Each structure stands twice: as C-alpha cells, then as structure tokens.
C-alpha cells in the first residue's frame, strides 16, 4: 500500500463521518427553513450522537449488537473502497452487506413495527439494487472499466454528459438510500408520516448512535458516487454534489411518503426505460 492509498483510507475513516454529520446538520437546517422553522444548529447531529452514546444500553436481542456493528463496518468499507478507487460492482455488493445486516437486526426483534420496517427495507433494497447495477453497467459501457481508478485515468470528460439519464436513475437510488420522501418507506425522519420508527424501532442508545454514524458514511459514499459523474473538475464536482443533495432535500419536502406498491413498479419501469435509452445512446456513439 503506497502513501496515497494510506491517506485515502485515513480520510475515509476520519473525514467521512465529519462530512456526513455536517451534511446531516445542513440537511436539517435547510429542511427547517423550507418548512418555515428556524431549525437546530448545524452541529446538532453530533450532539445527538454524543447523547445517544451516553444512554443506557437497551436491547431486545444480542443479534442487534452484531447487526449494528456489521452495518457500520460495511458502510465504512464502502467509503474506504471508494476512496481506494476500486471496483464499482464490488463496492455495490459491500453496500448490500450493510443493508442485509440492518434488516437482520430489525428482524431479530419480535416487534411488529420493526418487522414491518424490515420487510419494507428489503423491498427498498430490491428497488434500488438493480438500478444501481444498471448505472454501473452504463458507466462500464461508456468508459470500458468498472474500476474507478481506471475510469479516472483513462476517461477525460464528465460522465454526466454521456450518461444524463443514468444520473437520473441513480437519483431514484439516492432518494431511497438517503431515506427521503417519497421513498422513505422503511423509516422516515418526518414524524408525521411514520409508524413508530420502522426498521430502527428497536434500536436505542449507543447502538442507535452506531447506526447514525453508519448512515453518515453512507451519505458520504452516495455523494462520492455523484461526484464520479463530474470527476474532471473539482469545482463542477462540488456544484453537482451540492445541487444533487439540495434537489434531494427539496424532493423530500414537497413529497409525501408513498407505498412500496407504488414505488417498486414505477421506479423499475422508469429506471429501465431510462437505462435502455441511455445504453442505446452509448451504443450509437460507439458505432
């Protein structure tokens, strides 16, 4: 492992949660302003997590501990692998590990709330996983590699220009993964539309804290994927990431939660049509 890799790993380990927490704080602030409230301080997510770590350790079942840790580890690993510029599909599979353990943890408690949350989380995974694979395949078709390092080394124009529709497809996945309305079906941060806390119902105290931190990593990972669509210029990369995230917050605030019966068919149909259209575009260009 050379020096650059070591720096990348360290940044992924220590910088990512800071960025993720800050993004969460900004998110809450912007959301509050959109709703006509003043909102909490930007650092509020950090205070929340610190407070959670001071709470009593309350669990229903030992497996929750294992699952919380595995969720964290998997999410850290996705960010590390992203920082090391490795294989997109491999990162995707590691991301799935996190999702699976979150679900197992929710299923471990017998509570009907977390059970329903787990089932919904599974359907959300079912919705976004194929879409993400299609996006990565599109990136491969355009650049000739699944490895981020290769893409950055050999492809010298912004991916967004040749893959605009796939960027929209990834938008679906982002809404689900960032737990934003209308697809915050498994668990939502909008109290008015949540039955208890869905998939997170039975987590509390430090273990909920771990899950929060994992979610920060997840956020950084997803923003990293966005950044990949404009890897040629730092400025435009930043613009794209900020605009995308703001778009997500906006969508979150103007939409109400939908059911999975609506989400699954619509996201798949829309995603498939757009992916095929974009593939067609790429194939035409290659010809």
């Amino acid at each position, binding site marked *: 492992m050379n020096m650059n890799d070591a720096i990348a790993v360290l940044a992924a380990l220590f910088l990512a949660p800071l960025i993720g927490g800050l993004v969460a704080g900004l998110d809450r602030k912007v959301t509050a302003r959109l709703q006509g409230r003043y909102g909490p301080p930007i650092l509020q997510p950090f205070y929340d997590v610190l407070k959670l770590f001071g709470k009593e*350790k309350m*669990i229903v079942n030992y497996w929750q501990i294992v699952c919380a840790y595995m969720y964290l580890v998997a999410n850290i690993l996705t960010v590390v692998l992203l920082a090391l510029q490795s294989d997109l*599909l491999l990162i995707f599979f590691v991301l799935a590990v996190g999702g699976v353990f979150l679900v197992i943890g929710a299923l471990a408690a017998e509570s009907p709330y977390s059970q329903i949350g787990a089932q919904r989380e599974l359907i959300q995974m079912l919705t976004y*996983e194929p879409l993400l694979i299609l996006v990565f395949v599109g990136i*491969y*078709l355009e650049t000739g590699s699944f*490895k981020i390092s290769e893409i950055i080394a050999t492809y010298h124009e912004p991916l967004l220009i040749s893959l605009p529709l796939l960027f929209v497809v990834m938008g679906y996945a982002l809404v689900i993964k960032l737990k934003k309305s209308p697809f915050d079906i498994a668990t939502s941060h909008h109290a008015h539309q949540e039955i208890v806390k869905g998939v997170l119902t039975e987590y509390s105290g430090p273990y909920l804290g771990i899950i929060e931190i994992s979610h920060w990593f997840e956020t950084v990972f997803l923003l990293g994927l966005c950044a990949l669509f404009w890897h040629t210029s730092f400025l435009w990369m930043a613009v794209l990431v900020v605009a995308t995230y703001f778009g997500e917050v906006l969508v979150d605030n103007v939409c109400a939660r939908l059911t999975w019966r609506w989400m699954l068919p619509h996201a798949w149909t829309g995603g498939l049509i757009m992916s095929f259209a974009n593939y067609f575009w790429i194939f035409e260009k290659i010809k």
Partner: protein
Amino acid sequence: MVDALIGISVLLPFIGAILCFLTKNPRGRAAIIVTTGVLLTLSSLLLFQNLHGPYLYTPGSLLGLNVNSLITFADFALLFIILGIAFKLGNPLVILLTLLQIVPLAYFELKMAPHVEVTPAFYIDNLALIMNLIISIVGSLICIFGIRYMEEHEHHLHLKKSRQPRFFFFLVLFLGAMNGLVFSNNLLWLYFFWEVTTFCSFMLIGHDKTEIAIRNATRALWMNMTGGVAFVAAIIFIFYNTQSMEYLSLQALINHGPGLTTALLLPFALLCFAGFTKAAQVPFQSWLCGAMVAPTPVSALLHSSTMVKAGVYLVVRMAPGYQGTFLSTMVATFCAFTFLTASALAVNMSNGKKILAYSTIANLGLIIACAGINTPAAIIAAVLLIIFHAISKGLLFLCVGTIEHAIGSRDIEDMRGLYNTMPAVSRITIVGILTMMLPPFGALMSKWMAIESAAHIPWVVVMVALGSGLTVLFWARWAGLFVSGPHLKVFEAEENQGFFAPIVTIFKGFSAKSKWKDPASIKVPLVTLAVAAIVLSLGVPWLYTSLVDPVLASYKPGLFVKPFETGPMGLTSGVGAFYVLPIFLVSIIGYLAAVIAAKQKDHRVFSAPYMCGEQYPDISQPKFRSHLNSWKDYVAANIYMQEFIGEDKISYWINSIALIILIVLFGEVLR
C-alpha cells in the same frame, strides 16, 4: 493407477448400490454407504492430484465383455424398462417419448451407423475433474446424511417393511451414473448415463409412493424424456449432417473446424435443449419443484451435485463449440430469463424447500447464461458458481431436512426464532444463506464475474440485475427470521470466557449452554459443507489457479488469455477487481468487535419489543393488552407479494414467454 481410479469412480457406486439393495441389516448398509463414500472421495482427490491436463481413456472390456456393446445393450434395456413403467403408469405421453427414443436409436445403431466405436470413450479434462470432486464429495456426504434421515423418515411413516434398500440403491447408483456422465466423451455413452440419471430421479422422487409423489415423479420423467429425445435427435443429426462418426466424440464436436459450424448448430441447439430440461430451466421448472415431495437427501442430491448439474455441465462444456453464434446469445437470453423469473417465484414462497428449489433453478439459469455469454471470464464464473452452488445448496437442503424433522414444518414462518431452540443448526443454516448472497463468498464472486462479463449484452445484464435484487430479498429475510425472537434467559447463564470469548463465540454463538444432540451422520455432513463453503471462498485464488484456469486453458488451447490475475487479495482483471481477503478480514474484525461489545458486563438492559406501553409483563411472550384488558398475541409475517408475482398468476406467462424464446431459438437455428 489413473485408469483404476476412473474405474472406481464410475463402477464402485454401481457395486455399492447393488450391495445396499441386497443388505437387509441397516448397520451393514450404513457401513457400505460410508465405505463407498469414503472411497469415492479418496479416489476423486487422488484423480485430481494425479491428472495434469486432459486424460484420454478407453476401457476395453469389463469381465470379458466389450464395454461398448455392454453399454449399448444396457441402454436399450433401460429404455425398455422405462417403456414398461410407462405402460404401467398408463401415461401415453411417456410411452410416446420413450418410443421416440427407442426407434430412432435402434435405427441409428442398426442401420445408419452399426458398431460405432468412438475413441477415446472417456475424456477427462479439468471441468470433468471438478464435477467428479463435487459429485464424489458433496454427493457422498448427502448419502451419509441420508442414513439417519431415512431411519427417522420411515419411523414417521410407520412402515412395516423398510424400503431403504431400494432407496439407497438408487441414491448411490446416481453418483456412479453422474461420474460416468462427466467422464464420457462418446456421446452414446453420455446418453446412456444421462438416461440413467433420469431413471434414478424418477424412482427417487416417487419413492414414498403417495399419489402426489407418483404424479410428480411422472412429470419429472416426461420432462426429462423430452430432453432424451432431443439428445437422440442430436446424435442422429450430427451423423447425418457430417456423414462422419468422428463428431460423435464430444471433444471433436466442440473443437470442430470452422467450416462445420452451420452443420453442427442444430445438434448443439438440441443438446442445449436437453441440458435445459435436465437443469429445469423454464418452462420445465415444475419437475424440480415437484421433486420436493421426495425425502430431503434426494432433493439435496438432485439440486446440488447431481442431476441438474448434468444439464449445466453439458451446456458449459460445449460452450466453445457454439461460441460467437446466434445460439450462444439465445442461450444467454433464455437462461437469464430463467434466472429472473425463478428468483421472482422464490420471493413468492414461504415453503423453505420451494425457496431452495427456485433458487437452484435461478442459479442454474445464471450458470448457463454465463456459458451463453461465452467469454473467458463468463466461463470461469460458470465453473466457480457450479462449485459454490453445489456446496452451499447441498448444505441448505440438509439443514432444512434436519429442521423439518425437529419442528415438523418446512415453512420459513415456522422457523422464526429457531436460533433460540436449535442454535447449532440455525447457525449453520445462516452460514449457508450468507455464503449464497454476500461478499466475499464464492457464489457472490461468481455473480460479480457474471455481471461484469454480461455487461455488453444489455438485456441479459438487466435480467441478471433484477434477478439478483430479488435473490437478496428472499435470502436476507430468511436469515433474519432465524434470529428473530425475545431475549431468553438461557443466554444469561453463560459466563464470560475471558480472552478467548470472541473465538469461542464464533464457534458457539451466544448460547453455549444448549448442546447439539444430532448423531454424527448428520453433524459431519453439515459441518463439513459449512466449513468448505467458507474455506473455499477464502481459497478462491488457489481454486482459480489450480482448478478453474486449466478448464479455460483446455477450452481454447493456443488462444488462451487469462482473464483474471490472482493475488493474496483476491482476483483482478482489466476491468474489475474483487478483494476476498480484505473484505473477509474486515468483516471478522467487525464481528469480533460486536461480540466483545455484547460480552461486556456493564449496565445492559434487556427490554421487550416496543408495543406502545401495552407489552405483556413476561417479555418472552409476544402479547399485548387489547380491548377489555385481554392479552392478545401479536404476529408479523413476511411480504410475499402475492398480488404481483403469485406463482399461479405468473407461471402461465413465464412458461409462455420461455416457450416463445425457445421457438425463436430453434426457428433461427433451422433457418
């Protein structure tokens, strides 16, 4: 030495089977099964050690009889036995299909090409060696598991006279037939072993002689007989189109000259069709699902190491032969469609064995789709998936069988919280499930290779992507159900083992107190397969260089490009990289951290699940305060999406679409 080992691999199961049939003493039979299994395992390992590169062998005579004529004779004898059974069943379709094999075959052997001698009769390359290892090791473990299982099974059925001799006759015979099948180079021999496996599966599925067992066995018979008819047709067309006996050798057929591709395309398509029926691809999936009525060792054997793998083996083996043709793309399309639809149907199931069945069909679809994609990386994905699927699926079937005997149900909803009562078996089942679905395990690695190599055929990769999303869904919730449940006091009794606590916990989980009481014949197969699933996944670089790469080298001698580089980390290629060891190490670290956290004796509180404050005082019982202060049970169940993808709703459409794809395939080939 090698010749003797080949003889053992093929003939020993036949001898063992006859001995099993004749031995009425259960202990004696058990000894014969174990001995056969051990010898088979040893011979497959020795074969693997001693063979480097393809090995050609033609057995001259057996007990003074010419082997070739012996097999021809046995072939007709078998077909006439099946014909007799068909008349007994009174099933006109089976009669017709049998006659459609007997008459053309007789015409071919007597009139068209009398006294066919194909040399070498056996051609053992690395793919055959891998199959031999899987059949001999996984198959033997399943047979050994069957000893105790069948004892309990017959105990449940209250049989007056044991029917186990017959059962083990066919079970052990199956292994010999499969070994013969994968070694055969002479297509007529291959066809004979092919029909033996069809026949054995028919006898084993109908073993319990209930009405449904006989109905499903008959269905399995006729569906596989259509494959048999296609096989005979393929043999005849090969001879007719080339006017040469040379191409009745599988190896010659695969490495045919460039001028013959058009002439041989129809035989290839017919052989692929035979493979599809045997591998239960849609629209033939119903025979494999129906086979679930058989005792569990049969399901395990059919699904993991034998029968369905015969179909897969043939299509993968022939892959270089039809590379670059229209047929290849259609095979990929057809089987990717199977992968998608079978995964959807698996989501729909709550019966554990049916989930496994549909997942098998899906995985076989993926393997054959890889053969259809037909790039070096895809072939490697196919071979690796054959290996890892055999191990994990065999393991999962045995687990479900063990659980079924303990709780009397194979419904996954009834397996809720099973970790509290059967920790050891549950843990092994969870290992089996995780090795099927998560990185860094081998099954997922093959899926990674499959997607990366399918990327240039958009519709195939879309079907694979959707299907793999569905797979995650049904595996994850099944694993979760096992650990569902309240905190139990048993765990409290366990003391901290100090420094070794994490290590002990890896092996014993959180419930060291409850012992695993099953006998060794159940424990040994379960533990061996679980360990193999993990260790082989970690040893993928080794597996790749020593087993899988040579398969590829023998495919395209001279044109061989190594698609992946191996290293201590995992596999890398020009377009991707899969790190096995780092992911595994990081996961282990995460798990250990969790165990250490769980073992800490600080102020931890066990609470009841949240029930809005109306939880029953005893937290181990799922009850809440309902109207009039009465205590009501609460229940949760999985979402099976019946309204979208109910089996009865979509099967018709799936079968229709699959038939259309098949018609397009043959239409284009015949054009």
